């Protein structure tokens, strides 16, 4: 019975990492800076930012850094790619599942080349060591993201978390 319980728990834990869409709440922009943020620009930046989390989840879960390329650039991409290399070396996998985003655009630089978003995220992180689940924890973190425009989309250049 106890074994069955543990197996059920593992199944629940695993299925909870299915790709559910996170809840997204967008606060009205509270911009510093003189540049007006058009609704379409804001919507595109937020859409691309959320897509970046999707890419991040897949890249870390599958240890495939090339999945980052569409959404990340610069230091954000380099750091995430280094994490993937490191966890591969250690035999670790990490699964992230963002559950809820509470987003606010806080800065649109005057020349229009960067947008800064503050995101209070609830996410689950699951650590696996050689495919054995070590733990699953829920974190609530305040992320600062800086996005810059590329050919057809906004890409994340800085992604940095801190205690909420």
């Amino acid at each position, binding site marked *: 019975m106890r074994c069955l319980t543990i197996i059920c728990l593992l199944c629940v834990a695993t299925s909870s990492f299915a790709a559910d869409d996170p809840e997204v709440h967008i606060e009205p922009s509270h911009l510093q800076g003189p540049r007006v943020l058009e609704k379409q620009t804001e919507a595109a930046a937020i859409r691309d930012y959320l897509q970046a989390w999707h890419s991040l989840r897949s890249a870390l879960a599958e240890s495939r850094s090339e999945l980052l390329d569409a959404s990340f650039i610069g230091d954000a991409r380099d750091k995430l790619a280094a994490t993937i290399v490191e966890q591969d070396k250690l035999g*670790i996998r990490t699964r992230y599942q963002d559950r809820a985003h509470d987003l606010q655009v806080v800065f649109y630089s005057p020349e229009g080349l960067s947008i800064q978003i503050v995101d209070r995220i609830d996410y689950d992180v699951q650590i696996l060591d050689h495919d054995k689940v070590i*733990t699953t924890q829920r974190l609530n*973190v305040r992320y600062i993201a800086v996005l810059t425009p590329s050919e057809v989309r906004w890409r994340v250049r800085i992604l940095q978390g801190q205690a909420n």
Partner: protein
Amino acid sequence: MTFRVALLVIAVSAFQAASAQGATMTLAESITAGSAFSIQSTGSGNAVLYIVGLGQVVRRDVRLGEAVNFPAGTLYSAGRYLVVLATANGSESRAFNVVPAGQPVALSFLAKPSRLPVRLHDGITGAVYVFDPYQNLITQPTPVLFEISTGSGTAQTRKVLTRDGAAWTAMDSTAREGAARFVAQLDGVSSTRVIQQVPGDPCGLKMTARQVGPKLVLETDPVRDCSGNIVFDGTIVTFTETYNGGESTVDVPLKRGVARVEMPAYSDARISVASGVVMGNEIRWRGR
């Protein structure tokens, strides 16, 4: 069914709690990026310590009851990390922050435009992001000094505190044409952009006329903007001659600050000159 699920959850939670009782750990709530730190555990036996964040992952085999020391440079990527102490009986988890090192060493400076007319209010804008030695965004408010200066030493300065690692300013272009240095600096770190300031639109136009044979030679005085800078060559000046119910118009680019054209010398012609929205003087030519 619901009751069974509830029982299951309670049982599993109790099991997990009991499992985790074997070992606990003590660590700081936050450490500075790049600094040394240690994690103290209780209990006995072997365990595995995981430190997991988006920026870095660390795994160590440890002995419970001993301090695990991490030398400087182990964790350098700022962010929120999960620390897990895993034993044969279960695991204990804690979260902690790696905060950016306080000393800024790099600025990302975005300035616009690279070329603009003189005396434009808030015409030059700059934005900076401030980074520590590990390319972490320094989120603590940090004063950034923006300065615009020209060869003549004219300077405007503005001090701005960063918010979430970013600061911006808007400044006026100066009265004199030429290159201006736009500098963002803090604590010995600076970044410079060169902004080319060009003359503005003509401020006034004055022309003279003289007859050469059957033609009138029309020529402007050197065309200047309102700050006295010679307006750029290539700026179009329009001469219009009205005579006996007819009208001729000639567009002439400035060359060395002056526009010059020849037009037929009709008696009683009225000749005007303009550039953009600026009208110059009018000449009534009565012939000689």
